[in-house]
């Protein structure tokens, strides 16, 4: 399986969608789609995320890898497929500004990892709190690039339904590791590939 993860990772980094499709087709002979996600897609994306942290992988490669995986997995595990992971009613948004790349990467990686996530796009404080509360969201992921947007999360959190978990990410949180506590979030993701692990941790703590 390690060899398959490496091959899949190389296909993603080379943006070779055809090779990625062939690896999936070959794996599905003896694996279920969800096993492929858990044993190949998630580790490959984690390795690519680690590569980005260490400077060997470009953010653009991470983004394109997530997109390729998202499309690929949608073909074998459509969004409402019951074989997808047990769902937590999750939503993702970028608060206040137009810098959507970070949110887009996390969204792709989560979907490629078998999660179903509602994409709220760009929201403001009032719109976000109203929608997340009405839809009974359990895990809310908020991405920001600008510091003022990150600080506005302080206004969001007190207005959310009790028990809703908030995970934040984006440049301001990378440069100040205590900022997520300052705004009242439950956890932060240092990079997109951490999102799966962080969601699992947060929900394990909640249950």
């Amino acid at each position, binding site marked *: 399986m390690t060899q398959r993860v490496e091959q899949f990772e190389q296909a993603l980094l080379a*943006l070779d969608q055809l090779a990625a499709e062939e690896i999936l087709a070959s794996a599905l002979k003896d694996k279920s789609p969800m096993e492929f996600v858990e044993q190949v897609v998630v580790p490959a994306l984690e390795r690519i995320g680690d590569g980005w942290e260490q*400077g*060997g*992988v*470009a*953010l*653009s*490669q991470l*983004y*394109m890898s997530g997109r390729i995986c998202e499309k690929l997995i949608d073909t074998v595990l459509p969004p409402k497929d019951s074989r997808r992971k047990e769902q937590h009613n999750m939503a993702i948004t970028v608060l*206040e*500004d*137009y*810098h*959507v*790349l970070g949110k*887009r990467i996390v969204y792709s990686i989560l979907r490629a990892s078998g999660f179903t996530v509602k994409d709220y796009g760009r929201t403001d404080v009032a719109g976000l709190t109203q929608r997340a509360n009405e839809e009974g969201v359990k895990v809310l992921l908020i991405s920001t690039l*600008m*510091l*003022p*947007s990150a*600080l506005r999360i302080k206004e969001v959190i007190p207005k959310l339904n009790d028990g809703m978990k908030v995970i934040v990410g984006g*440049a*301001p949180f990378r*440069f*100040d590791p205590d*900022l997520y506590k300052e705004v009242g979030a439950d956890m932060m993701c240092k990079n997109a590939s951490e999102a799966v692990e962080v969601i699992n941790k947060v929900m394990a703590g909640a249950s």
Partner: protein
Amino acid sequence: MTQTTMTSLQRVLTTLGHQEPDRVPLFLLVTMHGAKELGLSIKEYFSKAENVVEGQLRMRAKYRHDCLNGLFYAPIEVEAWGGEVIYVENGPPNSGRPFIRKPEDIKTVEPPNVKESKCLGEALKAINMMKEKVGDDAPIIGVAVSPFSLPVMQMGFDKYIELMYEQPDLFNLLMKKNEEFCVAWANAQLEAGATAICYFDPVSSVTISTRDMYLKTGFEIAKRTIARINGPTATHVASGRCLPIVGDIAQTGTVVVGTSVDEDLAEMKAACKGKLTVLGNLNGIEMRNWTPEQTETIVKDAIAKAGPGGGYIMADNHGEIPWQVPEEVLLGISEAVHKWGRYPIEI
């Protein structure tokens, strides 16, 4: 020479020549704090060149730092192209919805005429007024977003990445248009009185691009563009990392490089020795909560690592100090630079 007091410009030129001036030069890259100083909203402040000039002069006097900043706000260039700028009360004006909605729009968008643009004209007027006020006492820093990085605001980062990979012809066309604009905008600022241009190029950082990608794209674009800018340039990759490509950056013809707080200043200084002056790398986000003791320790540490031998300018890591950073911290940074930054460095 080390015992006499230099002007800010002499201090900066000496360090750029990789010699030790009288003390480490300090660039406090404050853009919005002038509004606080004048009791204006950020939007009101940037509406008139006179406000920005007054703000910059007052901040230089207050913080005793070594430059005037000609930057109004990063999306001013996008505004000139017809894009939207969104003002907030407590932060820099932000670029709004991208004006290149689909890749085909690249064929029809045209660069604005720098001389006819109202917003750019106001910024040029401010630089001109700053020059009249300070003459050759202090450098005035103009800013031009690199042709390679501007599309993040022109079309959105996700769509821009897809363009790079999927539609190279349209990517090249956009670069051609952006290069023309960047050169015209940078040279207009120099003509107005700017001493140097900050070539703002975050997409080239290794946080965003690998070195291989950079060499094929941002590097070639920077070489072509910087060669046509009629004055010195400082390359800034915002808060991104650039240590693995400093040797390449030096070959683009630039003289200064901004470094991230994620990189070790001593390592960066060694890699740049004799080739590039290092600018950085105080953490602007964390700076909001620094105590006086932390401030002094961090500044002192940076000076110890990068100060000896010249070739170093102290600044924040991003090129713009957040609105939330209190005056006491900025005064503390200045105090520490004046205390510990005297040459010869004795730390």
